[in-house]
Protein backbone atom coordinates (compact mmCIF):
# COMPACT_ATOMS: atom_id res chain seq x y z
CA UNK A 1 0.00 0.00 0.00
CA UNK A 2 2.77 2.44 0.94
CA UNK A 3 4.42 1.86 -2.43
CA UNK A 4 1.32 3.24 -4.14
CA UNK A 5 1.10 6.13 -1.67
CA UNK A 6 4.75 7.03 -2.27
CA UNK A 7 4.32 6.91 -6.04
CA UNK A 8 1.18 9.09 -5.93
CA UNK A 9 2.99 11.54 -3.64
CA UNK A 10 5.81 11.80 -6.16
CA UNK A 11 3.33 12.78 -8.88
CA UNK A 12 1.71 15.21 -6.50
CA UNK A 13 4.97 16.99 -5.67
CA UNK A 14 5.97 17.13 -9.33
CA UNK A 15 2.58 18.67 -10.19
CA UNK A 16 3.11 21.34 -7.52
CA UNK A 17 6.55 22.11 -8.96
CA UNK A 18 5.16 22.35 -12.51
CA UNK A 19 2.42 24.73 -11.34
CA UNK A 20 4.95 26.79 -9.40
CA UNK A 21 7.27 26.87 -12.43
CA UNK A 22 4.48 28.10 -14.71
CA UNK A 23 4.06 31.12 -12.47
CA UNK A 24 7.68 31.84 -11.64
CA UNK A 25 9.85 30.80 -14.59
CA UNK A 26 9.82 33.35 -17.40
CA UNK A 27 13.23 33.59 -19.05
CA UNK A 28 15.53 30.92 -20.48
CA UNK A 29 18.01 31.88 -17.77
CA UNK A 30 15.41 30.85 -15.15
CA UNK A 31 15.26 27.33 -16.60
CA UNK A 32 19.06 27.26 -16.75
CA UNK A 33 19.29 28.06 -13.04
CA UNK A 34 16.75 25.30 -12.29
CA UNK A 35 18.81 22.76 -14.28
CA UNK A 36 22.11 23.84 -12.70
CA UNK A 37 20.57 23.58 -9.21
CA UNK A 38 19.17 20.09 -9.87
CA UNK A 39 22.45 18.86 -11.36
CA UNK A 40 24.48 20.31 -8.50
CA UNK A 41 22.34 18.58 -5.85
CA UNK A 42 21.43 15.29 -7.54
CA UNK A 43 24.42 14.63 -9.82
CA UNK A 44 27.33 16.41 -8.16
CA UNK A 45 25.92 15.68 -4.66
CA UNK A 46 26.65 19.16 -3.41
CA UNK A 47 25.03 20.20 -0.15
CA UNK A 48 21.88 22.33 -0.30
CA UNK A 49 23.43 25.35 1.50
CA UNK A 50 26.40 25.34 -0.85
CA UNK A 51 24.13 25.23 -3.92
CA UNK A 52 21.81 27.83 -2.46
CA UNK A 53 24.68 30.21 -1.79
CA UNK A 54 26.58 29.67 -5.03
CA UNK A 55 23.81 29.32 -7.64
CA UNK A 56 21.58 31.71 -5.68
CA UNK A 57 24.28 34.37 -5.63
CA UNK A 58 24.93 33.99 -9.36
CA UNK A 59 21.17 34.15 -10.09
CA UNK A 60 20.70 37.28 -7.96
CA UNK A 61 23.68 38.94 -9.66
CA UNK A 62 22.27 37.88 -13.06
CA UNK A 63 19.09 39.80 -12.27
CA UNK A 64 20.95 42.70 -10.65
CA UNK A 65 19.48 46.19 -11.02
CA UNK A 66 20.52 47.55 -14.41
CA UNK A 67 21.41 51.12 -15.15
CA UNK A 68 18.81 51.43 -17.95
CA UNK A 69 15.94 50.42 -15.67
CA UNK A 70 16.69 53.51 -13.60
CA UNK A 71 16.49 55.64 -16.75
CA UNK A 72 13.07 54.27 -17.63
CA UNK A 73 11.48 56.01 -14.69
CA UNK A 74 10.22 59.50 -15.58
Amino acid sequence: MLKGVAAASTGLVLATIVQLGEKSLTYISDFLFVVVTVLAVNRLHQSVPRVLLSVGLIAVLWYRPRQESAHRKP
Partner: protein
Amino acid sequence: MKQLPALARVFAYVSVLTVGGGMAAFPELKTLTVDVHKWLTLQQLIHLYSVGQMAPGPKMMMVVPIGEWVAGLAGAVVVLLAFFGPTAVLTLIVGRVWNRLAQWRWTTSIQKGLAPVSIGLLLAGSLTVAKGAVTDWITAAVALGALVILLLRSVSPAILVLGGAVVGALVFFPK
Protein backbone atom coordinates in the same frame (compact mmCIF):
# COMPACT_ATOMS: atom_id res chain seq x y z
CA MET B 1 18.06 10.40 25.26
CA LYS B 2 21.65 10.89 24.16
CA GLN B 3 20.38 11.36 20.60
CA LEU B 4 18.41 14.50 21.54
CA PRO B 5 21.23 17.00 20.85
CA ALA B 6 21.87 15.36 17.47
CA LEU B 7 18.15 15.49 16.63
CA ALA B 8 17.99 19.18 17.59
CA ARG B 9 21.12 19.98 15.59
CA VAL B 10 20.08 18.11 12.45
CA PHE B 11 16.49 19.34 12.29
CA ALA B 12 17.32 22.96 13.17
CA TYR B 13 19.89 22.91 10.36
CA VAL B 14 17.54 21.27 7.83
CA SER B 15 14.82 23.71 8.86
CA VAL B 16 16.66 26.75 7.52
CA LEU B 17 17.23 25.02 4.18
CA THR B 18 13.53 24.75 3.35
CA VAL B 19 13.71 27.56 0.78
CA GLY B 20 10.57 27.40 -1.34
CA GLY B 21 9.13 24.48 0.62
CA GLY B 22 10.00 21.52 2.78
CA MET B 23 10.87 19.41 -0.24
CA ALA B 24 13.85 21.71 -0.97
CA ALA B 25 15.61 20.31 2.09
CA PHE B 26 14.77 16.68 1.31
CA PRO B 27 18.19 15.73 -0.16
CA GLU B 28 19.94 17.13 2.94
CA LEU B 29 17.33 15.50 5.21
CA LYS B 30 17.97 12.19 3.48
CA THR B 31 21.76 12.54 3.76
CA LEU B 32 21.67 13.36 7.47
CA THR B 33 18.92 11.05 8.71
CA VAL B 34 19.51 8.06 6.41
CA ASP B 35 23.20 8.13 5.44
CA VAL B 36 24.92 9.86 8.35
CA HIS B 37 22.88 9.01 11.48
CA LYS B 38 21.07 5.93 10.09
CA TRP B 39 17.92 6.78 12.04
CA LEU B 40 15.76 5.25 9.29
CA THR B 41 15.98 3.88 5.76
CA LEU B 42 15.29 5.84 2.57
CA GLN B 43 12.12 3.82 2.05
CA GLN B 44 10.88 4.69 5.54
CA LEU B 45 11.65 8.37 4.95
CA ILE B 46 9.77 8.32 1.64
CA HIS B 47 6.82 6.54 3.19
CA LEU B 48 6.71 9.07 6.03
CA TYR B 49 6.74 11.91 3.53
CA SER B 50 4.00 10.22 1.51
CA VAL B 51 1.75 9.71 4.52
CA GLY B 52 2.45 13.35 5.47
CA GLN B 53 0.82 14.36 2.18
CA MET B 54 -2.50 12.99 3.40
CA ALA B 55 -2.34 14.42 6.90
CA PRO B 56 -3.79 17.85 7.64
CA GLY B 57 -1.40 20.70 8.42
CA PRO B 58 2.15 21.24 7.13
CA LYS B 59 3.42 18.30 5.07
CA MET B 60 6.75 18.42 6.84
CA MET B 61 5.07 17.45 10.11
CA MET B 62 6.23 14.04 8.94
CA VAL B 63 9.62 14.77 10.50
CA VAL B 64 8.13 14.49 14.00
CA PRO B 65 7.77 10.66 13.89
CA ILE B 66 11.50 10.46 13.15
CA GLY B 67 12.16 12.08 16.52
CA GLU B 68 9.69 9.72 18.15
CA TRP B 69 11.41 6.67 16.62
CA VAL B 70 14.83 7.80 17.72
CA ALA B 71 14.15 9.12 21.23
CA GLY B 72 10.48 8.64 22.12
CA LEU B 73 8.15 11.50 23.02
CA ALA B 74 11.03 13.78 24.01
CA GLY B 75 12.56 13.21 20.57
CA ALA B 76 9.29 14.12 18.87
CA VAL B 77 9.05 17.38 20.86
CA VAL B 78 12.70 18.26 20.17
CA VAL B 79 12.28 17.64 16.42
CA LEU B 80 9.04 19.64 16.33
CA LEU B 81 10.64 22.65 18.02
CA ALA B 82 13.96 22.36 16.17
CA PHE B 83 12.33 22.07 12.75
CA PHE B 84 9.58 24.67 13.00
CA GLY B 85 11.12 27.11 15.51
CA PRO B 86 14.01 28.55 13.47
CA THR B 87 11.95 29.00 10.28
CA ALA B 88 9.14 30.68 12.23
CA VAL B 89 11.58 33.18 13.78
CA LEU B 90 13.43 33.67 10.49
CA THR B 91 10.19 34.28 8.58
CA LEU B 92 9.10 36.83 11.17
CA ILE B 93 12.40 38.72 10.94
CA VAL B 94 12.70 38.56 7.14
CA GLY B 95 9.02 39.54 6.74
CA ARG B 96 9.53 42.69 8.81
CA VAL B 97 12.82 43.62 7.15
CA TRP B 98 11.43 42.84 3.68
CA ASN B 99 8.60 45.36 4.05
CA ARG B 100 11.13 48.05 4.92
CA LEU B 101 13.23 47.11 1.89
CA ALA B 102 10.35 47.37 -0.59
CA GLN B 103 12.00 50.32 -2.33
CA TRP B 104 15.50 48.85 -2.32
CA ARG B 105 16.83 48.27 -5.86
CA TRP B 106 18.02 44.74 -5.11
CA THR B 107 14.71 43.47 -3.73
CA THR B 108 13.39 42.45 -7.16
CA SER B 109 16.79 40.97 -8.08
CA ILE B 110 16.75 38.74 -4.99
CA GLN B 111 13.18 37.61 -5.66
CA LYS B 112 13.88 36.95 -9.36
CA GLY B 113 17.16 35.19 -8.63
CA LEU B 114 16.00 32.96 -5.81
CA ALA B 115 12.76 31.83 -7.51
CA PRO B 116 14.43 29.46 -10.04
CA VAL B 117 16.94 28.24 -7.46
CA SER B 118 14.18 27.34 -4.99
CA ILE B 119 12.24 25.56 -7.76
CA GLY B 120 15.44 23.71 -8.65
CA LEU B 121 15.87 22.67 -5.01
CA LEU B 122 12.25 21.47 -4.88
CA LEU B 123 12.80 19.50 -8.09
CA ALA B 124 16.03 18.01 -6.76
CA GLY B 125 14.19 16.94 -3.60
CA SER B 126 11.32 15.39 -5.52
CA LEU B 127 13.79 13.51 -7.76
CA THR B 128 15.40 12.11 -4.62
CA VAL B 129 11.97 10.87 -3.54
CA ALA B 130 11.21 9.58 -7.04
CA LYS B 131 14.40 7.47 -7.06
CA GLY B 132 13.09 5.52 -4.10
CA ALA B 133 9.36 5.64 -4.85
CA VAL B 134 9.21 4.95 -8.58
CA THR B 135 10.76 1.53 -8.87
CA ASP B 136 8.74 -0.22 -11.60
CA TRP B 137 6.21 0.50 -14.33
CA ILE B 138 3.24 0.31 -11.93
CA THR B 139 4.61 2.93 -9.54
CA ALA B 140 5.67 5.00 -12.58
CA ALA B 141 2.10 4.81 -13.90
CA VAL B 142 0.67 5.85 -10.51
CA ALA B 143 3.08 8.82 -10.27
CA LEU B 144 2.42 9.89 -13.86
CA GLY B 145 -1.33 9.47 -13.38
CA ALA B 146 -1.33 11.64 -10.24
CA LEU B 147 0.80 14.26 -12.03
CA VAL B 148 -1.45 14.44 -15.11
CA ILE B 149 -4.71 14.43 -13.13
CA LEU B 150 -3.52 17.25 -10.88
CA LEU B 151 -2.37 19.34 -13.84
CA LEU B 152 -5.63 18.87 -15.75
CA ARG B 153 -8.24 18.77 -13.00
CA SER B 154 -8.78 20.38 -9.63
CA VAL B 155 -8.72 17.30 -7.42
CA SER B 156 -7.94 17.04 -3.73
CA PRO B 157 -4.38 15.67 -3.36
CA ALA B 158 -5.61 13.45 -0.51
CA ILE B 159 -7.91 11.60 -2.93
CA LEU B 160 -5.02 10.91 -5.29
CA VAL B 161 -2.82 9.66 -2.47
CA LEU B 162 -5.67 7.44 -1.28
CA GLY B 163 -6.04 6.19 -4.89
CA GLY B 164 -2.33 5.38 -4.86
CA ALA B 165 -2.83 3.49 -1.60
CA VAL B 166 -5.64 1.41 -3.15
CA VAL B 167 -3.52 0.59 -6.21
CA GLY B 168 -0.60 -0.25 -3.94
CA ALA B 169 -2.75 -2.51 -1.78
CA LEU B 170 -4.21 -4.32 -4.79
CA VAL B 171 -0.95 -4.76 -6.70
CA PHE B 172 1.69 -5.15 -4.02
CA PHE B 173 -0.32 -6.99 -1.37
CA PRO B 174 1.63 -10.12 -0.36
CA LYS B 175 -0.09 -13.20 -1.80
